[in-house]
């Protein structure tokens, strides 16, 4: 943003502040104020957006007083991650780093320590940025978002969480409660790769890959790409092209080429012209595929 156009020294609007202590209270407030409210999690996106008057909520609903929203819980087939779990907690979690390392890598790639000490996984997703690093990782993990409201809960696959127009499917009276993240099948290698203007900038391109081998043949492969279209997405064509193939440099390069052909960047996006994203997405996809393949090979031994 152009910080000289705004006074970022203050919060330029007035709002009512609510800090519900339970989920029931939180969804009740959302039902009452919905359109006029914004949820405050870590605030690392919300506060700058309010400072720039991109958002001008009349009510701010701070969810940090609800402890059950900020926890990582192991389940028989994976993990449940509360929406208010801090990125720093995810990055340092032994459970995540052991069982879902690609998510740990994505969390670690976000901002600075100061940002990750506040920023949450739910905020990273609900901010609806196509560059959200955790979204790309969650897509190869086939995560499911649990969305809550007074009308009840609903489960939304992460691939359908973004509507492709800079929004999420979370309605004004709803909130993201948690993420249900299944484990990758045994022997699956994974990798997350990102490039930005600086190492703590938001992504210009990010790629996550999960890949499983069956004797030197690619048994299964998942590739997700972020910051290259209005929403992060799985590149199914590239996945299909690689499945069943012998694991060779050429096969990986061909898949990376397909990835770069499926991007839909917008000319007006500031961080890089479409041509940059086209070239970089191929390079990063190849790097992530190679990294995941190497890990899969190690695991097979």
């Amino acid at each position, binding site marked *: *943003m152009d*910080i000289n156009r705004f*006074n*970022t*020294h*203050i*919060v330029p*609007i*007035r*709002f*009512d*502040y609510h*800090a519900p202590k339970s989920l029931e209270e939180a969804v009740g407030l959302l039902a009452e104020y919905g359109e006029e409210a914004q949820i*405050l999690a870590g*605030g*690392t996106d919300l*506060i*700058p957006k309010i*400072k720039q008057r991109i958002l001008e909520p009349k009510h*701010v609903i*701070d969810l*940090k007083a609800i402890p059950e929203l900020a926890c990582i819980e192991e389940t028989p087939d994976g993990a449940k991650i509360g929406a208010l779990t801090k990125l*720093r907690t995810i990055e340092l979690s032994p459970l995540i780093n052991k069982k879902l390392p690609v998510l740990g890598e994505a969390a670690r790639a976000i*901002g*600075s*320590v*100061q*940002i990750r*000490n*506040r920023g949450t996984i739910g905020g990273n997703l609900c901010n609806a940025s196509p560059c959200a690093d955790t979204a790309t990782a969650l897509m190869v993990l086939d995560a499911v978002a649990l969305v809550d409201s007074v009308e009840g809960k609903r489960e939304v696959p992460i691939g359908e969480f973004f509507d492709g127009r800079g929004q999420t499917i979370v309605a004004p009276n709803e909130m993201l409660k948690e993420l249900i993240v299944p484990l990758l099948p045994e022997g699956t290698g994974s990798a997350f790769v990102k490039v930005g203007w*600086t*190492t*703590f900038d938001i992504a210009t391109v990010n790629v996550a890959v999960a890949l499983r081998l069956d004797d030197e043949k690619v048994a299964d492969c998942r590739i997700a790409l972020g910051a290259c279209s209005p929403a992060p997405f799985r590149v199914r064509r590239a996945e299909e092209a690689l499945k069943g193939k012998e694991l060779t440099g050429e096969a990986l390069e061909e898949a990376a080429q397909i990835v770069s052909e499926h991007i839909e960047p917008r000319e007006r996006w500031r961080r890089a012209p479409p041509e940059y994203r086209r070239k970089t997405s191929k390079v990063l996809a190849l790097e992530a595929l190679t990294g995941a393949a190497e890990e899969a090979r190690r695991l097979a031994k």
Partner: protein
Amino acid sequence: MNIEVTVNGRRKRFDVEPNTLLLNLLRDGLYLKGAKYGCGIGECGACTVHLDGEAVLSCMILAVEADGRRVDTIEGLADGDELDPIQEAFIEEGAIQCGFCTPGFIMAAKALLNENPYPSEGEIREYLKGNMCRCTGYVNIVKAVQSAAQKARE
């Protein structure tokens, strides 16, 4: 709104507007001018303070979010006239040029050494990457953190 915050070990009560930033409460309400307003959007780290022991950016936190919690600023680091080893090291290594970024850097470095008393140079640079020094004096800042870590081990 009435809030209660423990600032540098002292419990204090405030009546704040919901849109008051923690940084402005510290600087204007308590005259603690160490934490600086730099960019206001989380890119420079000049406003770094500790919230319940964690390095955070006080320009992106509402004062009401600190209710019932502990805030530590650069002013609370020295023990009377005795400077913190990190402060000493910044002076000795010439890690301070114009000084604007220094409180943020020292508070970030303090959090690093609390978590990891034996950081490598790479770990120091990674941890401090959210702090900008417009005088570009990074080499001496890294040296100062290394030297403070070394002294703490002796």
